[in-house]
């Protein structure tokens, strides 16, 4: 005879619980945390470097690099002067909260105003894993095409900010900006869209100013909560 046990429990309960613990730690450390998602080759590391250049005089920045293998990205970030920790997932297609908790221990320096988590390049698997972030940002690069939101709606719907990178390459590709904005306005009307080029710096000021404002608001909110 079989017996049925009722559960109704989230499958990723462990990750969600760890993500909540991370959110508390990030708040205690006064750090604004960005979870940066995109496909491979869209320019995540270049965008992080350009963002660091835009904000380095105002904030202390750290980076957690997630890759399947190698530490080339962390080295690039360290050379640019930020605290950086590399996570190698060893084949896993996304980052999980347990990895971020270990990286946060390893990063040591807890006086950071901003930490950017560079997730594994993947438009699907990264979406369901909360990392305790304050802001979820994704990059779509122009060569990937304006129809990506229809093919991978999940990531476009779960991101609060969408950076359209490599905007300097528009003349070479059939990327319809109006169609892209229309798709996002259907899928995720509240998303903020910034057109940028990490390479030329075009549009980076607007994105950096927005991020700086969010970090300041977060700090003001955190100190109000403490007092």
């Amino acid at each position, binding site marked *: 005879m079989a017996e049925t046990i009722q559960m109704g429990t*989230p499958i*990723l309960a462990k990750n969600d619980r760890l993500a909540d613990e991370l959110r508390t730690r990030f708040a205690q450390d006064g750090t604004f945390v960005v979870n940066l998602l995109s496909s491979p080759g869209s320019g995540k590391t270049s965008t992080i470097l350009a963002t660091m250049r835009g904000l380095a005089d105002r904030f202390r920045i750290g980076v957690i690099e997630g890759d399947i293998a190698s530490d080339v990205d962390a080295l690039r970030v360290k050379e640019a002067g930020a605290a950086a920790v590399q996570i190698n997932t060893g084949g896993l297609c996304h980052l999980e909260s347990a990895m971020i908790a270990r990286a946060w221990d390893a990063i040591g320096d807890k006086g950071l105003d901003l930490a950017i988590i560079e997730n594994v390049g993947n438009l699907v698997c990264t979406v369901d894993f909360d990392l305790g972030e304050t802001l979820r940002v994704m990059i779509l690069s122009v060569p990937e095409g304006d129809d990506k939101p229809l093919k991978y709606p999940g990531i476009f*719907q779960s991101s609060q900010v969408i950076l359209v990178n490599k905007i300097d390459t528009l003349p070479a590709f059939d990327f319809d900006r109006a169609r892209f904005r229309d798709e996002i306005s259907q899928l995720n009307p509240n998303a903020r869209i910034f057109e940028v080029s990490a390479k030329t710096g075009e549009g980076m000021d607007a994105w950096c100013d927005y991020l700086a404002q969010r970090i300041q608001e977060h700090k003001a909110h955190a100190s109000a909560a403490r007092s």
Partner: protein
Amino acid sequence: MHEYSIVEGVMDGVIPLARQNGASRVSVIRLRIGTMTDIVREALDFAWDVVCDERGPIVQGCRLEIEPVEPHFVCMACGHEYDADRLHPRCPVCGSGQTLLTKGRELEIASFDIETPETSDDES
């Protein structure tokens, strides 16, 4: 292939509870999965077989049943409640984009069936 992590999460939830309930084997696990998640059934089945083998006799040969959950929205502007496909979440009545997804992102273990040593035909 995050389906592998999903299946690991299922087993982490089910196996300890099955043992607490004196199970010798778990025969079927039922999941509730929202269609707004990007779970691929074929990838899930593949990961399922691999992980069930790894986790030992208690879940070997365990069946997987999935109840899909379609997206359901509430419009924050006019209060209208509606089902919509994932590509068209805007309110069909007032056109607002200020909507709340109330169903469709579920990744849940609904229930599972166990065999106990007293009731099992096969105690090996």
